């Protein structure tokens, strides 16, 4: 129901902005990439094989004097190996609307996503959507404030069957510490509910876990001939299955540079570390630990060469290590991919 509402809302944004096509822009791009991957700790795929991935993106952007809106559609099929392989298909649709006022910008954004995973033995899928309202206040001289309030929902099928609902508020105040810099200090708070249908079906134990995550965050951005961005968040974690002190750290580092006009290089590194202490050390409780999908430590690097405005070749490499709810599981790997991008 919630997912259908998300798609209906996206459709509505699309219709509302259609009549004003004179200020609209349609962009598309297709990426295809292939190479090797190596993984360990998973029975889902082979430890070493070929990886092929394609990305299709279509976006419709509208902007007038003080208003902008967009609708974006993305699709990504992935094949891990060609024989007895793992396949995945991901769809994503998002729409947003932004209004610029004299001393404030505000906007609303909605995103819906559906992922399908399949191999010869099993298949599962998960859906998610996110609705957020954000504003940037420029009322205070030299210190713009950013606020974001949102609701997100994630549901997974098959053996996981873990639903996650959350409501969050993200506040940040910014300051320019030196030329070309943007530094931020803020607070993040989130109320979450985890509902594990697998537990309620097969055990008599509690199948829900409610809790909060809250704590400070800092960010540092620098942009001139290169871009450098660092973000850090420390969150205290309180829930029905964890006991004090439970907490988590998250650090992100991004760097990028365009050189010799056509070459560019980008780096992304995420480090996530959590220290959760369970109230009762039963295996059942581990199924109720806060654990959104795709929460992983990773390093990704991309080197690209732009042949012309609509054609690019690139080399990508990445390392990841997944954080599962049961930390005894260990799933990690790396990949090396060569790809091309065609765009309008």
């Amino acid at each position, binding site marked *: 129901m919630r*997912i259908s509402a998300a798609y*209906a809302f996206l459709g509505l944004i699309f219709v509302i902005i259609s009549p*004003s096509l004179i200020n609209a822009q349609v962009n598309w791009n297709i990426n295809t990439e292939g190479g090797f991957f190596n993984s360990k700790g998973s029975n889902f795929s082979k430890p070493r094989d070929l990886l092929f991935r394609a990305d299709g993106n279509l976006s419709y952007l509208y902007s007038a004097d003080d208003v902008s809106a967009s609708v974006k559609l993305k699709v990504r099929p992935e094949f891990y190996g060609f024989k007895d392989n793992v396949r995945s298909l991901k769809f994503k649709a998002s729409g947003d609307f932004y209004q610029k006022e004299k001393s404030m910008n505000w906007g609303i954004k909605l995103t819906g996503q559906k992922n399908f995973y399949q191999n010869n033995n099993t298949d599962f899928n998960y859906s998610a959507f996110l609705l957020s309202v954000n504003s940037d206040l420029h009322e205070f001289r030299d210190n713009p404030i950013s606020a974001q309030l949102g609701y997100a929902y994630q549901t997974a099928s098959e053996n996981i069957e873990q639903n996650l609902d959350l409501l969050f508020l993200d506040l940040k105040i910014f300051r320019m510490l030196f030329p*070309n810099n943007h530094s931020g200090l803020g607070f993040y708070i989130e109320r979450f509910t985890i509902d594990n249908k697998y537990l309620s079906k097969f055990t008599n134990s509690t199948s829900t876990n409610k809790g909060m995550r809250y704590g400070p965050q800092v960010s540092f951005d620098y942009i001139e001939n290169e871009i450098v961005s660092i973000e850090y968040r420390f969150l205290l974690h309180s829930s029905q299955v964890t006991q004090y002190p439970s907490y988590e750290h998250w650090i992100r580092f991004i760097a990028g540079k365009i050189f010799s006009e056509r070459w560019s290089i980008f780096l992304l590194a995420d480090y996530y570390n959590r220290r959760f202490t369970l109230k009762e050390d039963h295996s059942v409780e581990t199924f109720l630990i806060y654990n*959104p999908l795709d929460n992983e430590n990773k390093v990704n690097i991309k080197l690209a060469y732009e042949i012309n405005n609509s054609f690019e070749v690139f080399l990508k490499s990445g390392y990841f290590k997944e954080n599962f709810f049961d930390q005894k599981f260990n799933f990690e790997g790396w990949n090396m991919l060569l790809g091309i991008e065609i765009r309008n």
Partner: protein
Amino acid sequence: MTKYFLLSLICFIILNFKVSSQSLTEIEKRYDNLKSKIANDNQVLDSLKNILESRGKQIESEKQKQNPDDDKIIKLMSGSVSLSNMIDDHREKLDANTKNLRQLSGVLKNKYSAKIDSLTFLNRSSKENSEKLESEILFFTEKRLLVSPQIEMLSFNPKKILEIDLSKAKNSDERASLNEYLTRALTEVNSVLSDVTKQAKETNDALTLQKKTSKFLAETEFDRDFRLGNISRSSTERNDVNAALGGEDKRSIADQINSYVLLLDQLNIFDKSEGINSQRFIYKPGETNLSLKDYSELLKEVKQKLSDYKLVLANKIEQSK
């Protein structure tokens, strides 16, 4: 759920077809009609304002009389209320039409630009009909300048310069002095254009870097929005003009931006209601905000205007030889 998208897609295609199928002449006709309607409405609005003002004076003079006629005052005041309502209605219609005119001028500008691009391409690829093609390029460039918003960064009046007709010079001395005046104006335009081009390149480089970084993040993390521990927007997505042009102090950034806005207005040779709203670029640090994208748009607009103006000016000088 997919039916909503299909329905939206059909609406999108129909509306897109409707707009793109209109010919240039049809749009120009609509533009001219709307422009004359706005001019008429402005006249009507001015007359209504004058009547309202004279009614106000009549009321004041009646009140100042020793024995004011209350019935007359009431009659005048009720008439003023309905006049005031009429003015509001007219202003509302005028605002809507002005907005439509701005949108139409955007469409025309895009169509003229497309014509100029294809004619320039033809001119480069074939030497045949070069003269005819060049005159057509000039024709559409002048048309684009007419529908674009107009620069007070220049020491001369751009509109007056365009009105100079060397063929009407009374003697060779007058012709020579007008020619010198035009040449000096061209040198000034070239100098400002070179500064704007440099600034536009720096801004575009920063925007391209920002855009490519966001794209790299989006493709690396397809599921990024749903990494719920990191749900907020990436800081690489935000950057106001202050942070990006932080090499200079805020006051000089503001002065620079606002002088470009003035330049844009100065080149807005014709009706100021046309084209983009340059006032949205006015920047007061700490009071209003301007994104790097807005600044880039402003520079692009100023650059385009100056280039068009340079072409027309160079052509006038060439004709005088």
